[in-house]
């Protein structure tokens, strides 16, 4: 079974601070996705990383795929209250026909 472990599970910081969220596995994934979920809504895709070492930027969010394609990180610069939400990483599971999700990082940005 391919497992994705996210850390930290909970993070509460002040507006303007920087933060990094990690997604780790002992398995190799062909790609990893990051989703953001707000209360009462379904997850929404932020980014897909495919190549080992790949870095993608989405405004203040920077996503990196590990060289060995076993881990990924999400870095947020100058966090804002609008960044508050549940961040989920997901990888292509065995058989390449399903998404396997991490347990999520609940991020709270305090004004």
């Amino acid at each position: 079974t391919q497992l994705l472990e996210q850390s930290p599970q909970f993070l509460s910081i002040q507006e303007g601070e920087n933060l990094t969220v990690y997604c780790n596995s002992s398995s190799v994934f062909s790609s990893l996705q990051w989703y953001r979920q707000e209360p009462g809504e379904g997850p929404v895709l932020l980014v897909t990383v495919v190549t080992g070492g790949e870095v993608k930027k989405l405004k203040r969010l920077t996503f990196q795929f590990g060289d060995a394609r076993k881990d990924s990180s999400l870095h947020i610069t100058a966090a804002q209250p609008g960044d508050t939400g549940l961040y989920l990483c997901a990888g292509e599971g065995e058989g390449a026909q399903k998404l396997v999700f991490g347990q999520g990082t609940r991020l709270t940005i305090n004004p």
Partner: protein
Amino acid sequence: DTAVSQTPKYLVTQMGNDKSIKCEQNLGHDTMYWYKQDSKKFLKIMFSYNNKELIINETVPNRFSPKSPDKAHLNLHINSLELGDSAVYFCASSQLPRLNTEAFFGQGTRLTVV
């Protein structure tokens, strides 16, 4: 115009009842999924259909039965509901079964069994 829509959004029912959750997508996708999110926010796949054909059936009790009348719809029927079935159920769709493509999720159905 909602891409993936589920009904109902909230469902409160007693143990032992049978209930259905409906899902429709208007994206023209071939693949649809049901996920269960527990109280700890862990999302776990239950079923996946590609063009009305079941391709993934995780270890889910037989009381859960998906039905796909056409590739735009994937409904979930649950028999003899138990307390442990309480969770948020998400329907999702993607263009392909492969996961370099984006999965679009519905708003979820919060099921509470009392």
